[in-house]
């Protein structure tokens, strides 16, 4: 976020972890990350068919209840069950993440490969374009979109997706440059293979590990950005619960019920932590050879 940058963690994929990180560190990161992300996905899927209560049901008689056997995380000022809202909120977080990472990868990966394979000036031009995009963080883009179209899930997805393109493009370009220096690519070129074929046959499979890692980190960034957007009121409109808006509406009740801020806050932080750790773990697991150093 910080939001957003939206996003802290932008560069984590490529540089944050130094080389001496073998053994237990690697495995722990991967396992913990995978478990958190797995639980998150299960929670989101489960919430389609079952939640303890209707998350949008307003019940004046059950306002601001403390956590109990009936309301695990208590209720908000409208008497809505907080746990059910957290469950349904994970749908929005994951949905926006999938779409944003999809947009970013679909544009960024080809861009990075072309920038890495093409003539020098093409690579330079694409990377300058990339730098320019970096000056437009997700939140800023989303605010621009929202100024004209109003806030919506679609606006959040597109804005976060566009803002995440540079992360993919830069990473894939550096991977492509390494692959292009290998002898099998030289052999393929000597054999007269079309550059498109080389890109598809040799480059893409070899950079796919990088893409998977970046996708995981991209998810973390998307969750942060989506939370910030719905916190500001530019995300998915009510009554669909989102973690960001739950936090926003908790703010006026910090004196009476600070727990209303804690639950969605922990949900956001744990989700982001899970995707970041999964990304870290995957990087060490998948890609010993395409490391930065």
């Amino acid at each position, binding site marked *: 976020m910080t939001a957003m940058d939206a996003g802290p963690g932008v560069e*984590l994929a490529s540089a944050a972890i130094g080389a001496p990180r073998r053994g237990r560190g690697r495995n722990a990161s991967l396992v913990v990350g995978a478990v958190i992300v797995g639980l998150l996905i299960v929670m989101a899927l489960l919430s389609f068919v079952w939640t303890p209560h209707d998350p949008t049901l307003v019940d004046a008689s059950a306002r601001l209840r403390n956590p109990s056997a009936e309301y695990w995380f208590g209720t908000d000022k409208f008497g809505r069950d907080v746990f059910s809202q957290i469950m349904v909120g994970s749908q929005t977080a994951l949905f926006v993440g999938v779409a944003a990472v999809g947009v970013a990868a679909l544009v960024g990966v080809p861009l990075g490969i072309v920038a890495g394979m093409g003539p020098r000036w093409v690579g330079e031009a694409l990377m300058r374009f990339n730098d320019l995009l970096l000056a437009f963080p997700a939140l*800023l883009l989303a605010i621009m979109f929202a100024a004209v179209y109003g806030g919506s899930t679609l606006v959040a997805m597109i804005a976060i997706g566009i803002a995440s393109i540079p992360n993919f493009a830069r990473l894939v370009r550096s991977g492509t440059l390494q692959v292009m220096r290998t002898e099998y690519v030289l052999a393929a070129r000597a054999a007269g293979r079309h550059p498109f074929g080389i890109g598809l046959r040799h480059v893409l499979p070899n950079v796919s590990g990088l893409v998977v890692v970046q996708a995981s980190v991209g998810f973390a960034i998307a969750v942060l950005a989506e939370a910030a957007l719905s916190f*500001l009121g530019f995300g998915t409109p009510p009554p669909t619960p989102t973690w960001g808006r739950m936090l926003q509406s908790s703010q006026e009740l910090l004196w009476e019920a600070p727990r209303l*801020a804690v639950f969605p806050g922990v949900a956001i932080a744990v989700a982001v932590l899970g995707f970041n750790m999964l990304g870290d773990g995957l990087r060490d697991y998948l890609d010993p050879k395409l490391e930065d150093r």
Partner: protein
Amino acid sequence: MLLRLLRRTSVFLASLVVSSIAVFGFMAVLPGDPARVALGVDASASAVRRLRAEFGLDRPLVNQYASWVHGLVTFHLGDSYVSRAAIGPQIADRIQVTLWLAVTAMVIAVVIAVPVGTVMAMRHRRLSGLLLSGLSQVGVAVPAFLAGILLITLFAVRLRWLPANGWTPPAANPRMFFEQLVLPAFSLGVVQAAVLTRYVRSAVLDVLREDYLRTARAKGLRPAQALVRHGLRNAAIPVVTMLALQLATLLVGAVVVERVFVIPGLGSLLLDSVANRDLIVVQDVVMILVVAVLVVNFAVDLLYVAIDPRLRTGTS
């Protein structure tokens, strides 16, 4: 060296032009006509026409773009379509507020991240290093606005040490200014610090493996001495880069944190303008934020040359 400088400068200028065209084009091409958006859907066609004529929206786009850029450069930004207030002075006031917030946060981030990241690197195989790494991993996962809400809950609601929100100009009441600045600046700064520590750690780890550091140790310096005398300057380059790249995150984080703490900065102006459908102000503020990011990135490019003598000779 001169060539490098010229190239960087032209890339910077080109970025300014392209991004201004992008922002302008985005706002101009979108279906919502600013006058229509400002007046609302119920406005009569003649009222919309009058507003369009008054603010020059009926002129060709090229002319509109030219006068917008001219306004930005000379800081004569004209009046808002909605409030009719002059935009320039408003933005000037707000920028000061946001700068206080962002700069303080940046300082907090550096002051925390450099020592913590260095310790993390020097003890990366020990428990203390691993614990700090884990802590920074958690910090990265916490958005600034969440940190803000948690800090308010603890220091304003529970302990009642600091005000929960508000803003006082430093000249009006320095004590109050400081008290109100602490929580928002820490919300932004601590989160930035978490991200930054990881880069400091990684940069210091790289330096620790260098030959010249082993030489320094061999001539009798203790690890910390060797690092301070020979290592930190080299580790500074990636860290400074990261610091600059984080500026965009920081400014955007400030937008949200200003909302949390009810601070009248640039971010609040932006969000209020969106709420009031004041598109011209949105366009101006977005452009100013983008220019700020581009200027800082350019400045960092120049700073490299100052930090790294190798770049000065032009051999690389």
